[in-house]
């Protein structure tokens, strides 16, 4: 009886004791000296483990800092405040770092960029990219399936109107989206420079214009306009040098393709899409032709009168000419209005039919 209770207690207790001592000794023998500054730095760092600093995570960055040879301002999330705190812990002065922000260099929403086909596969940019480089004719544009949205740990990217959209207040420029994007259409640029050329197409102007309404065609007007010479054209694509840019906005005004846009706190100011030219039914074409013929008739009559008048009497002719011209202008304006009305009704018709098609 005594044995059957005491022996197991002794055996298990003894095992526990031996193991405990063993672990105690081992923790002393195998103790690894850790830098005291590492936990301190870890406390300061945001702990998002986003990898924006270029290391595997916050702890890896802290370890690298203590090893030396690494700058204290690498953390894009914490920015200057964290850089200063780290510098304090490390006992060095912090270097200033310019605030960067991710930008999606594409304006090609589905109503502006021509589509090759309709992608019905998994809603993910890589899958779309594998199938002929995605839906869009343009091989450089944003695919709009939101792989960048998934990798953003700060909720700064959303898909609006088929193109990724960066909220620059939330963006910390960790670069995860730029890394993930199969088209590499996201660039990390300094926040200071407000204007970006929102196109990556290096195709010739004609091809770009065919593929997308808002693509950079490399015309060079912006480069000529820029008073500071900050814009250069290479490979049919304008590039702004953020170091030279003074945010005057002249390039954005002059750009014929509206491919240069300003970055505001809400994100990029994207140009309004141009209304697509409506397709005409044969009847509508007939109607348009009839209208044009009628207009021509109206114009030819007064022109003939004018000639006669000039030949016969100069003074009368002048007054009559003025009258005729006035009449002409009025008629033309009338015709224009009528045309515009027809055009408008036609546009509505087309958009209705399109809607019906979509609904079906």
């Amino acid at each position, binding site marked *: 009886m005594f044995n059957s209770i005491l022996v197991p207690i002794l055996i298990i207790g003894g095992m526990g004791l031996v193991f405990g001592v*063993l672990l105690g000794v*081992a923790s002393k023998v195998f103790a690894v000296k850790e830098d005291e500054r590492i936990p301190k730095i870890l406390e300061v760092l945001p702990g998002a483990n986003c990898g924006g600093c270029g290391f595997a995570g916050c702890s890896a960055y802290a370890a690298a800092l203590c090893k030396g040879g690494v700058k204290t301002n690498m953390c894009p999330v914490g920015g200057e405040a964290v850089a200063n705190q780290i510098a304090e812990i490390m006992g060095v002065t912090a270097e200033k770092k310019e605030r960067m922000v991710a930008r999606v260099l594409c304006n090609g929403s589905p109503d502006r960029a021509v589509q090759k086909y309709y992608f019905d596969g*998994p809603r993910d940019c890589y899958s779309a990219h594998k199938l002929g480089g995605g839906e869009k004719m343009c091989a450089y544009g944003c695919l709009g399936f939101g792989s960048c949205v998934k990798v953003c740990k700060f909720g700064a990217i959303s898909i609006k109107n088929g193109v990724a959209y960066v909220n620059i207040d939330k963006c910390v420029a960790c670069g995860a989206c730029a890394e993930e994007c199969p088209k590499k259409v996201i660039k990390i640029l300094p926040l200071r420079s407000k204007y970006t050329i929102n196109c990556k197409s290096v195709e010739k102007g004609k091809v770009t214009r065919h593929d997308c309404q808002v693509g950079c065609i490399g015309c060079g007007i912006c480069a000529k306009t820029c008073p500071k010479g900050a814009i250069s054209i290479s490979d049919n694509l304008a590039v702004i040098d953020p170091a030279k840019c003074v945010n005057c906005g002249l390039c954005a005004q002059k750009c014929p393709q509206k491919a240069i846009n300003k970055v505001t706190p809400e994100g990029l100011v994207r140009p309004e899409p141009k209304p697509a030219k409506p397709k005409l039914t044969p009847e509508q074409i007939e109607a348009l032709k009839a209208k044009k013929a009628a207009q021509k008739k109206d114009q030819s009559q007064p022109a003939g009168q004018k000639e006669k008048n000039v030949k016969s009497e100069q003074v009368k002719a002048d007054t009559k000419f003025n009258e005729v011209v006035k009449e002409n202008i009025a008629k033309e304006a009338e015709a224009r209005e009528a045309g515009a009305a027809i055009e408008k009704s036609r546009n509505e018709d087309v958009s209705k039919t399109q809607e019906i098609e979509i609904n079906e």
Partner: protein
Amino acid sequence: MVADLLIIAIGAILINNFVLVQFLGICPFLGVSKKVDTSVGMGFAVIFVMACASIITWCVQYYLLVPFHLEYLQTIAFILVIAVLVQFVEMFLKKSIPSLYSALGVYLPLITTNCAVLGVAIQNITKFTGVEMSFVKSLVYGVSAGIGFTIAIVLFAGVRERLESSNVPEFLKGMPITLVTAALLSIAFLGFSGLSF
């Protein structure tokens, strides 16, 4: 002798696969199988710990528990051994092989409570394989059980990576589809039961 070891190994790896046939160690199987890289790390950590645990628990059983007729204390003694072993291995690796530690380190504490490891230790003693387990045989059984676990978790991680980018119905997203996949993989492994000797 060699034939015996081969039978034990193939039995543990394929026929009586710890995860997919015996349903042991499901927690890490579901938890650490999101990416192939991490699942490989976990697999190797399990192989390592299972081999060590097999050796030590075998010694504890036959040199400590059997002489004192304390076989009924098997479970508690083995859990103690495994927990201490994992802790010790972690410390040892951190000091002497930092590169291996950084590769396995995250997964080692997870193994402490992995029932597959306890399963190996107990099956070594209870003649699960139908053979009297010598020291060498129990070592082989431990290693091959670990290999079986690794194969299962790596295969599963591969399937899950594919699942990430596929169109899963809304109501099956997340854990449901994962469990369905695990069940299908398990059914596939049932095919090996025809191999049993």
